[in-house]
């Protein structure tokens, strides 16, 4: 009686009923102590380049993600995207069970089925499908998942495309051309005295922002070194450009000639390494005269004097490093640009040296590297094959080509030529929405795996991913819920009596594959974790989040500098008043993290805009065109048009406009669905002529005011004035 009275009284005071109960569980797990937290090490999969993280787990729930102090790539640091991983784990729109399409494709009518049912349906549909007709599209996969996928494609003879919208094909080709390397080298910013970057937004989204951010911190101020100098050359004032000592505007696509012009200055003034100069110019046979700064100045828009100054600084402040990538690579002459930029490194003699370009060794135990992306050319071939009904089955995992490919509506149309589309996504992204069967995979915090960072820190590293929490949908029972992607592939192989060749006899599941991998590492008997028996090695690896061997460095031959690419290539681009510069905003990456509310609400560093797709335009130009902030502007390319809200600011050239990537998802859950516009959809399918990579920076567009006005949500003040710290009370400056 007293109890109920208390309950009534408490209910009246608004105490939720659950707080009046204490559940005594059946059995208490050993490590679950109420109110105590544990930090488990694993690998972040939200960023394109995996970093080591530790996850705070309390009472079986992941609470907070922080950088893993031991992990060599990020040394305890992380970024906003990694931090938001907990939201992807507990996202309200996660798919909790296998789904089968009931209505027409793309209609969005689904029915839950059991795993066994789903897998057998796929198996029956796959009968009679030849290996060629089965295509696997995934994000670039490294580590053991990569080897499982490889053995699956081997077993079936099917094609495997590793797709990401902002592919690194050009960068990898350039690294191969210039340095002869198969894996990405590490740019050793922290020890460099001078950094010269062409288009690589390395502090924000390019390759491995956390690793470069860490380096940048030391580059600016660290014990026992002078403050480094950093010059950034790009067509838009990106976050990285904003942090440079000098931002130099270059016309999109002319980074290569600019770099060659600098090379010419260095060579002419005799500032470069003699051996490298001889090799680069083929003993003087290569004629660089056309790259005289006065000529280049006219085409690139950079004053000749500035070119000489920068070349001079670059050559004299050593160690210096030149980085090329990002928008510099995103033109039809992308490879030429990057080759020219990376060749500069030879002139200052920093190749495979501290403070320069440090080569990475091949990963141990034959693991695949994690960032071999397929080119856009291959993807559009796939699209054509789909349209021609040459593809019978399409497996998609962690990739969203129907969102990220230019003219995605055509790709989506082409998908009607495919009999069976299976998506392994745990979230209704644009591609999953077109699937026939959805087999939701575990969130990365619930899953096993390994990762080979690319670029690595200069030595061999294998990161280990372990489930830090039990699968969230576990309570739905074994027949529903989520599963590991590798396990599904293994099961499929078994059912179709095409078993995958797994390393070892009693290796049955993906976890076993990972454990077997650890066994091989244990067999190497070197590196960060050493122990007498495998059990404690395994525990050590999981505790520290991975295995690495600081001694295992690149020991191949020093490359000879290739000849400078002296025949200049003009970037090809369409017509239109403005060059379109798509860019990664701080949170949304290439669109893969758009579904997380923290990242949607994360102010973009430059515009502080949130939740929208906006178009950055020069403030003077906007005034000319009578465009104010928040005006709905139609951005039209020959491939179509999108609407975006104008954001005029002074950090962009009057002949370019910039649009963030990540908006305009057709699926993806409540936080991203039909929010903003997809800039990929208006890109012209131009490619780099050597690598077939998408030239995503080569589209030209025109702007038109629609006359509508929508408030652009952003963190800075409401009026479109320019925020300026006039009295320097907020940010005082010093000249050092």
């Amino acid at each position, binding site marked *: 009686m007293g109890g109920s009275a208390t309950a009534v009284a408490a209910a009246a005071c608004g105490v939720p009923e659950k707080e009046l109960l204490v559940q005594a569980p059946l059995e208490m797990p050993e490590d679950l102590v109420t109110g105590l937290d544990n930090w488990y090490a694993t690998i972040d999969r939200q960023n394109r380049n995996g970093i080591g993280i530790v996850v705070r787990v309390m009472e079986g729930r992941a609470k907070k993600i922080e950088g893993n102090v031991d992990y060599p790539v990020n040394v305890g640091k992380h970024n906003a995207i990694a931090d938001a991983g907990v939201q992807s784990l507990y996202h309200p729109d996660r798919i909790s069970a296998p789904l089968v399409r009931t209505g027409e494709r793309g209609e969005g009518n689904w029915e839950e089925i059991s795993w066994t049912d789903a897998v057998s349906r796929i198996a029956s549909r796959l009968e009679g499908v030849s290996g060629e007709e089965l295509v696997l599209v995934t994000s670039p996969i490294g580590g053991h998942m990569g080897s499982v996928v490889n053995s699956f494609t081997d077993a079936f003879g099917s094609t495997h495309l590793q797709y990401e919208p902002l592919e690194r094909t050009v960068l990898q080709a350039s690294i191969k051309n210039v340095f002869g390397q198969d894996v990405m080298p590490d740019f050793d910013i922290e020890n460099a005295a001078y950094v010269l970057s062409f288009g690589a937004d390395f502090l924000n989204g390019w390759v491995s922002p956390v690793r470069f951010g860490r380096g940048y911190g030391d580059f600016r101020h660290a014990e026992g070194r002078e403050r480094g100098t950093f010059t950034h050359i790009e067509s838009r004032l990106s976050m990285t450009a904003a942090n440079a000592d000098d931002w130099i505007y270059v016309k999109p696509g002319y980074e290569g000639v600019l770099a060659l012009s600098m090379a010419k200055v260095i060579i002419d003034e005799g500032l470069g390494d003699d051996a490298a100069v001889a090799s680069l110019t083929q003993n003087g046979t290569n004629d660089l005269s056309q790259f005289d700064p006065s000529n280049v100045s006219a085409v690139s828009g950079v004053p000749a004097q500035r070119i000489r100054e920068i070349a001079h600084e670059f050559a004299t402040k050593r160690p210096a490093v030149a980085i090329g990538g990002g928008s510099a690579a995103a033109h039809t002459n992308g490879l030429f640009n990057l080759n020219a930029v990376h060749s500069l490194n030879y002139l200052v003699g920093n190749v495979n040296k501290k403070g320069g370009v440090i080569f990475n060794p091949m990963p141990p135990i034959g693991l695949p590297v994690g960032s071999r992306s397929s080119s856009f050319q291959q993807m559009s071939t796939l699209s054509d094959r789909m349209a021609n009904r040459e593809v019978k089955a399409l497996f998609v995992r962690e990739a969203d080509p129907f969102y990220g490919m230019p003219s995605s509506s055509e790709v989506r149309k082409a998908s009607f030529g495919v009999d069976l589309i299976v998506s392994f996504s745990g979230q209704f992204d644009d591609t999953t929405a077109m699937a026939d069967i959805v087999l939701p995979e575990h969130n990365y915090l619930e899953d096993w795996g390994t990762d080979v960072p690319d670029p690595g820190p200069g030595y061999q590293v294998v990161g280990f991913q372990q489930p830090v929490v039990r699968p969230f949908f576990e309570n739905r029972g074994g027949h529903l819920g989520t599963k590991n992607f590798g396990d599904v592939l293994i099961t499929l192989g078994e059912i179709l009596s095409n078993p995958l060749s797994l390393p070892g006899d009693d290796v049955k599941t993906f976890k076993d594959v990972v454990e077997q991998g650890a066994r091989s590492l244990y067999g190497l008997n070197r590196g960060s974790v050493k122990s007498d028996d495998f059990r404690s090695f395994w525990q050590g690896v999981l505790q520290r989040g991975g295995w690495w061997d600081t001694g295992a460095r690149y020991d191949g031959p020093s490359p000879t500098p290739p000849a400078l690419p002296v025949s200049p290539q003009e970037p090809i681009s369409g017509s239109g008043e403005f060059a379109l510069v798509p860019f990664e905003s701080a949170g949304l990456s290439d669109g893969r993290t758009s579904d997380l509310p923290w990242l949607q609400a994360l102010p973009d560093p430059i515009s502080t805009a949130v939740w929208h797709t906006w178009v950055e335009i020069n403030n003077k130009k906007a005034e000319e065109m009578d465009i104010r902030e928040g005006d709905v502007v139609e951005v039209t390319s020959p491939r179509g048009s999108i609407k975006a809200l104008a954001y005029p600011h002074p950090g962009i050239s009057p002949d370019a406009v910039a649009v963030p990537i990540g908006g305009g998802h057709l699926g993806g859950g409540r936080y991203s669905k039909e929010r903003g516009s997809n800039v990929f959809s208006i890109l012209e399918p131009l490619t780099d002529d050597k690598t077939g990579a998408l030239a995503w920076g080569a589209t030209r567009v025109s702007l038109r005011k629609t006359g509508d006005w929508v408030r652009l949500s952003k963190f800075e003040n*409401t009026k479109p004035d320019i925020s300026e*710290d006039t*009295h320097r009370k907020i940010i005082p400056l010093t000249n050092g």
Partner: protein
Amino acid sequence: MQEHVQLTQKQINEDLLTSVLGTPRWWWPALGFFVLVFLIGMSAFGYMLNQGVGVTGLNRPVFWGAFMVNFVFFIGISHAGIMISAILRLTQAEWRRPITRAAEVLTVFSLMSALMAAPLVHVGRPWRADLWVFPYDFARGVWINIRSPFVWDPSAVMTYLTASTLFVLIALIPDLAIIRDRSTGLKRKLYAGMALGFRGTPRQWKLQTIAGILLSALVLPVFVSVHSIVSWDFAVQIGPEAWHSTIFAPYFIIGAIHSGVSAVATLMVVMVWAWGWNKYITPDHLDAIARLLIIVATAWFFFFFLEWVFALYTLEPAEMAMRKLQVFESPWSWLFVVFLFTAYFIPVPMWLFRGVRRSLFWMFVTTILVNVGMWLERFLIIVPGLMRRSEFIFDWGSYHPSIIELAMVAMTFAWVGMGMLVFTKVFPLIPLFDIKEGMVGRDEIRIGRRIVPASIRE
């Protein structure tokens, strides 16, 4: 200067008790209107309790808006009562007689409105506002922070409310006795209780008069302190530019008197129009109050001018940015113009004309204008100050009140109207005994060749 209209005491009783003993036809509709507005405001308040302060237009950094404006405004209005009653009583201004009670009652109800505006609807968690207003928290052992002007506020306002309520009650006693003797039944019993056995004996009269004078003297410091303290709500702040000014206390007090006395003038006109008390509130009275208003308004304008001098003298960039915003940027610029004209440049020159001073209509219009202007003045101090264009230009923001907020603002006005109406139904709004005393004081007799007052004041 006063005209001689001698009225018999019977006439006075009949005239002035009309509001209590009879009900004019407009009374119920008028009351209904105010109650309706009040109820709408209360439902808006209920909605706000349910949803949170988000339903207002407030934001970061404009954390204070219409509620605080209203609080300051009603504290300002409330200064009329003491100004008229205490100061004019002590200075023996004869023309105060018919308006003292109306002014005091206005004080009481506007103070209640002020309390409604600030601690009640202003705070984020009104249900915990007791921690602030009645902060005697034995259970937790945590007390109030006496360094905060927000702690001084309730004590000052409560003191003022107590004093003015006492004022009203003491002055009411003889009139209540009169009503008691003119009513029967339950009503008589109620009034008998309230009249506290007043029988008009000389001793009772003496006590009543002394109490009035004593209260007048004692309440004067409160009168000065209340609005000083309200001004310190702003003046102690270093955050918003242009608030931390030493001139604020006297500037606020004189501004309060300006708006308060204007409100009383408005009320006088309304009383004449509503009950036809033109024999009691004559053009002479309006003339007198308008002359007073000219002085008050000009004194206020001087302080307003001084505030600007202080700002322009230092030329602090942050403050100048805020001033620029206040004066040159839309919509503040035109609000500023409206404020200047309504609060000073229209009414004061008009009051210089005798015709305006003695006209019911024009006095009504000009005094209403003054209060529109004074409301805007507070708005222009609070909101642009908080927008803080100055240092953190990165996150300055604008503000406009939401409908819900305006409903609650209207509620506080309706409360005053409602209160006044109900009060007139229960009590006479013009003190009968005071008028009679005035009549007696006005009797003149001829002694020899000289005409002298018939009675000598105590």
